[in-house]
């Protein structure tokens, strides 16, 4: 593999600054939980279902607890009190609440159980549920032994019809055509829903709702087609937005393999409150780590609003921050699908060399991460013929620099959600180039004083400078001043702020404890 000569001292400085930055985030969210984290805990215990108005039971319970000022101790303890005093199972309790036959607040207020007894009961219940998630992870390992996934870069395509059954049809065809990974794009605006829709869905805008049932339907279809093709097909969805950790839990239960999850994306691009996002991302990543799910971070998005040439260092800086925050959720590097993109203006002279410099730089900075490489989108036009060629240049960059997760570009990117033939053409494009230039990266060297080395040095220099500046002023202030993607977000603004809750001194989240303990032990 051709290598850049990078100043390791600067790389070290980047990581040191990131540690400082992550410390400031930890301090900022110390002692906080959120309504979404508490709903996640309920889901992990098996609370599910909706009432007659389609409001999910986890929302019903958490809203009632919050109103009654009972959430500070954590939903786990309250659920425990309700279960023990009613002698119901989680399923029966969920159903009774969905049918409005049971007042959980009354149940909790009337219970005078010893709190240690409640905690140990809930700890045992959580431990049993955690075992199930572990079994699902082991099932993935087994299946991947039997039907190994294709070689990297993995070919990643999206389906986005709005109808899960139509999605299944397209996903199955994509797998036949050689796709390794299928992502079901979410319906637009789902990230701002403060609940997770329920059941199979057939209507969506620009995508399909992420629901547990939809996950299950797609999982079954991909397992089936994967077995027929002799290749494990990975399934992706989004644990981002206001329900980030809840969707992480659903993904863990339905054996998703990857989830979009970024520490800052929601703040920047969806105007979600900072505290809410940081608290949610910590727990969601802990779940992902425990379930063995690869996260995909969203740095590529910076370049859809900011310039890929002048802002390249913001992508790398964000990758360092995402890496450090992810490792604090016990995510190992091989589960960190750090994101970046091929978004330099195609009219720039030697733009291809600059793309190689960036891709190779990121490859060497994060050697174990399965990097998620995003295709050109910003400069895609209605000229599908040129677009197909742009995607080809993107694929060539990827095979030279050894990227991990290749999100295939569509020649019709600027026009519509992909037609079946668009997906097939893009898979052909990638397969052709990945085969035809398979060992090119191993055959070439970068000139020590050449354009590629020079560009990488420049980006690394700017990254160190940016990270040290952020470490100095704190990540929160950096986000306020528009250092990422040119977007400014005030610390006290944003959606979902009301859902941030101070934990009481006797707060208890047994899942966080179990996950962390086991993950640390297995390191």
């Amino acid at each position, binding site marked *: 593999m051709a290598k850049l000569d990078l100043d390791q001292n600067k790389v070290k400085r980047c990581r040191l600054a990131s540690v400082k930055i992550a410390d400031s985030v930890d301090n900022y969210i110390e002692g906080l939980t959120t309504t979404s984290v508490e709903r996640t805990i309920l889901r992990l215990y098996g609370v599910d279902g909706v009432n007659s108005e389609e409001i999910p039971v986890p929302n019903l319970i958490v809203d009632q607890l919050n109103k009654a000022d009972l959430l500070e101790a954590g939903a786990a303890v309250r659920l425990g009190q309700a279960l023990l005093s009613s002698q119901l199972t989680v399923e029966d309790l969920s159903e009774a609440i969905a049918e409005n036959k049971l007042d959980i607040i009354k149940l909790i207020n009337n219970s005078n159980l010893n709190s240690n007894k409640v905690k140990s009961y809930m700890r045992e219940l959580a431990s049993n549920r955690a075992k199930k998630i572990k079994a699902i992870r082991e099932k993935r390992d087994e299946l991947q032994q039997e039907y190994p996934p294709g070689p990297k870069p993995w070919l990643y395509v999206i389906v986005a019809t*709005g109808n899960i059954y139509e999605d299944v*049809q397209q996903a*199955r*065809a994509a*797998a*036949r*055509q050689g796709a390794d990974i299928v992502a079901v794009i979410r319906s*637009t*605006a789902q*990230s*701002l829903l403060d609940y997770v829709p329920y059941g199979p869905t057939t*209507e*969506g*805008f*620009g995508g399909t709702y992420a629901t547990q049932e939809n996950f299950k339907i797609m999982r079954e279809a991909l397992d089936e087609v994967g077995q027929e093709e002799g290749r494990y097909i990975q399934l992706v969805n989004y644990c981002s937005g206001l329900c980030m950790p809840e969707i992480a839990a659903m993904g863990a239960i339905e054996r998703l393999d990857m989830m979009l999850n970024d520490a800052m994306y929601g703040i920047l*691009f*969806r*105007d979600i409150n900072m505290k809410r996002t940081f608290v949610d991302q910590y727990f969601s990543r802990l779940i992902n780590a425990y379930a063995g799910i690869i996260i995909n971070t969203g740095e590529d998005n910076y370049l*859809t*609003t*900011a*310039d890929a040439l002048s802002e390249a260092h913001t992508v790398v800086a964000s990758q360092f921050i995402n890496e450090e925050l992810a490792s604090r959720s016990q995510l190992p590097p091989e589960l960190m699908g750090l994101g970046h993109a091929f978004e330099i*203006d195609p*009219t720039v002279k030697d733009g291809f060399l600059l793309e190689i410099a960036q891709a190779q730089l990121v490859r060497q900075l994060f050697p174990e991460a399965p990097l998620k490489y995003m295709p050109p*989108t*910003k*400069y895609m*036009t*209605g000229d599908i013929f040129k677009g197909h060629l742009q995607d080809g240049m993107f694929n060539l960059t990827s095979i030279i620099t050894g990227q991990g997760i290749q999100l295939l570009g569509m020649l019709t990117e*600027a*026009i519509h*959600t992909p*037609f*079946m*033939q668009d997906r*097939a053409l893009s898979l052909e494009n990638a397969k052709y180039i990945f085969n035809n230039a398979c060992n090119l990266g191993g055959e070439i060297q970068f000139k020590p004083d050449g354009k590629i080395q020079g560009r990488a040095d420049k980006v690394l220099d700017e990254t160190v400078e940016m990270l040290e500046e952020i470490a100095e002023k704190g990540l929160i202030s950096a986000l306020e001043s528009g250092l990422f993607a*040119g977007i400014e977000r005030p610390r006290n603004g944003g959606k979902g702020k009301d859902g941030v809750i101070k934990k009481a001194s006797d707060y208890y989240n047994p899942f966080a404890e179990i996950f962390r303990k086991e993950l640390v032990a297995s390191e």
Partner: protein
Amino acid sequence: MSRDLTAIKPYGDTMNDGKIQLSFTLPVPAGPEGKEAARKMASQLNLKEVEVVHTKDLGEDFSFYIVYGQTDKTIDYTKIRVARATSSVMDYYEINEYIEENIGRPLRVVGACTGSDAHTVGLDAIMNMKGYSGEYGLERYPMFKTLNLGSQVPNEELIHKALEFDADAMLISQVVTQKDIHVKNLTELVELLEAERLRDKFTIVVGGPRISHELALELGFDAGFGIGTLPPEVASFLAEELNREINKEEN
């Protein structure tokens, strides 16, 4: 060779050969029957001399075709009239000068992706300082004062912000068009403005990959811009239109 503009045809490599290429997927497996189905499909589109030059099986009983054919239909180019938002596009300097000279103050513009639409790429291309394809966005123009509200802005909030900002114009971007959601969003905005008797207060412009000037007019907007629109086109329209509006009010 002389061209008869009253009867033009697509040009392949010879005048009036009428050559057309198309590609599509059929929900049948690849094979002789699929190929024949593709040929018949093109024939039913009135193409002559149809050739299916490429067939590929897409799995799950789908197949892809690339087809050539020729048409004998002609178009009278001399009779074509297209609704255009602007008759002439000025450049960055001309636009600033034009506004300064004719209106004498910066124009105030609010932009938003409305409804559930989260795709700001089009709006940013027109509004952001950096602009698109080498053309500065409106933020960069000294004679525009802009407020970019970003994605997923409810129509009510847009109106509220536009009043607060004392805007002359609103720029709406709509990228997601599945099930005609954009038409619903756009219609709702016009209805809200009319209900509050504010329609005449703002010049309203919509842009997006599936937007045409014609569609925009039909929905009650003042202009519409489609794919590939650059900031100066929108800026020129706003300058000329607001000049008419503002100076009409004063007369």
